[in-house]
């Protein structure tokens, strides 16, 4: 009898917990979609916060420039350096600019920019809004008849959606210079020849898909950061958790989106 009890007890205990988690998962999914729906409902109706949008776009864009410049240059340089031995075996080193341009413009520049931004911007948005939530600053905005969702969520998400595609293009161009340094040192190719070979294999769809992809990445980073911050709780520990979770979730979603977008653009090539 005792044995029977001891074997059935854990199963009964685990039952509600699993169903509770299962239900919670769908509640969370609903919350995320409701949050995104609220963004679209509030972002494009007056009152507009143009000054704050410019400020936040500046924060996201201009303050990321140094990091984007350094990483872009290094990515271009390293990618070119690592590609060389394989192409050298076939005597195809003249193809390096084309290879670099395709890799950078189609995938690396938007992806690297998004990952860096998720780390730098996503975490800071999560932490900022999270700390405002736990110190009741958002409640204070709410009770003073202002629009905290528009001011904090919509503006920051729009700022990342605007800035990250621009940063991605900039990152691609800087990476191109990094690649040129390696090509110039090894092959002595002139800058004009390198540029010509770099842009030759690229079509309109490559720029278009990169821009669309970066815009989606930017929106994802903004909305995830603001969602995690907006829903943070449990004091300062909750703020840290929100910042950390914003980075991890945004990076994960960026990779998933990359796979899906690559598939879709593949159909149009």
């Amino acid at each position, binding site marked *: 009898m005792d044995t029977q009890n001891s074997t059935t007890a854990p199963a009964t205990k685990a039952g509600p917990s699993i169903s509770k988690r299962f239900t919670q998962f769908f509640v969370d999914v609903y919350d995320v979609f409701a949050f995104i729906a609220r963004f679209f409902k509030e972002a494009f109706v007056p009152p507009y916060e143009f000054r704050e949008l410019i400020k936040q776009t500046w924060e996201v864009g201009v303050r990321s420039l140094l990091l984007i410049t350094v990483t872009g240059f290094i990515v271009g340089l390293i990618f070119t350096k690592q590609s060389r031995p394989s192409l050298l075996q076939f005597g195809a080193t003249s193809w390096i600019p084309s290879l670099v341009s395709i890799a950078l413009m189609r995938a690396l520049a938007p992806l690297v920019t998004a990952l860096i931004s998720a780390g730098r911007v996503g975490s800071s948005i999560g932490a*900022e809004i999270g700390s405002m939530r736990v110190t*009741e*600053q958002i*409640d204070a*905005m*709410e*009770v*003073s*008849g*202002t629009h905290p969702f528009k001011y904090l969520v919509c503006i920051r998400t729009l700022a990342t959606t605007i800035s990250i595609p621009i940063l991605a293009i900039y990152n691609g161009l800087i990476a191109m210079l990094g690649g040129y340094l390696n090509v110039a040192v090894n092959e002595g190719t002139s800058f004009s020849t390198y540029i010509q070979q770099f842009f030759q294999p690229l079509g309109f769809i490559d720029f278009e898909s990169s821009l669309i992809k970066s815009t989606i990445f930017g929106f994802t980073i903004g909305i995830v950061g603001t969602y995690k911050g907006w829903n943070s709780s449990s004091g300062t520990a909750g703020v840290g958790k929100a910042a950390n979770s914003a980075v991890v979730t945004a990076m994960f979603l960026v990779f998933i989106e990359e796979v899906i977008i690559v598939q879709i653009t593949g159909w149009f090539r």
Partner: protein
Amino acid sequence: MEKQPQSIDYNEKVISIHGLTKSFGDYHVLRGIDLDLFRKENLVVLGRSGTGKSVLIKIISGLLKADSGTVNVLGNEVTTITPQDLQQLRTRIGFSFQNSALYDSMTVRKNLEFPLVRNQRSLKRKEINEMVERVLEAVGLSQTINQMPAELSGGQRKRIGIARTLILRPEIMLYDEPTAGLDPITSMEINNLINRVQERFNTSSIIITHDLTCAKTTGDRVAMLLDGQFQRQGTFDEVFEGEDVRVKQFYDYNFIN
């Protein structure tokens, strides 16, 4: 130290609450609250920590939803109000938070301007500056205008928090633990400020506290919240002259400890 009688209009209720209940899971915080607040009255809600005092004013301001009951504020039923009307109503209610809730990325000036420019978009820069300076002068902190919240003392933060709510000229003020964490002298300054606000801005107020000095100094009427209901209401002396052991205990502990 005792509150001077005010010209309270007992014919006009600015807040009227009936049968209000609120639970968090199995914990029943408010169990059928009935409460009226009259024009130009300061009502102090006393009670131990965790008895639902802050929950009550958060429901009044629409930050939390009631489980049942009616909450009428300035003629608006808060439990069924539309978001747009709630937004409008909130400009007539001032909420002073326990930790002041100042926007820590903004200077004092920006903190005060924030609700003003977003609710009265037609205001000119000169008018905004004048209103900010006037309200800062009312709380006696004109010199802090360009300081960041982190540079202010606890008492100054409370006063700036009150100034930020006053800038919209609210009809009702809700104070959540206005003297919590302050030394006795600063507490008395805040109590005097609450009375000055009532006189100068003609506000009706609910003051949530467990500080009996604050209750005695600022309250025209005191209500004692115990077990999710108001057990006693009246003047400060009326509330504490009864035989209820828990009320007596609250009084004794407040002055002994």
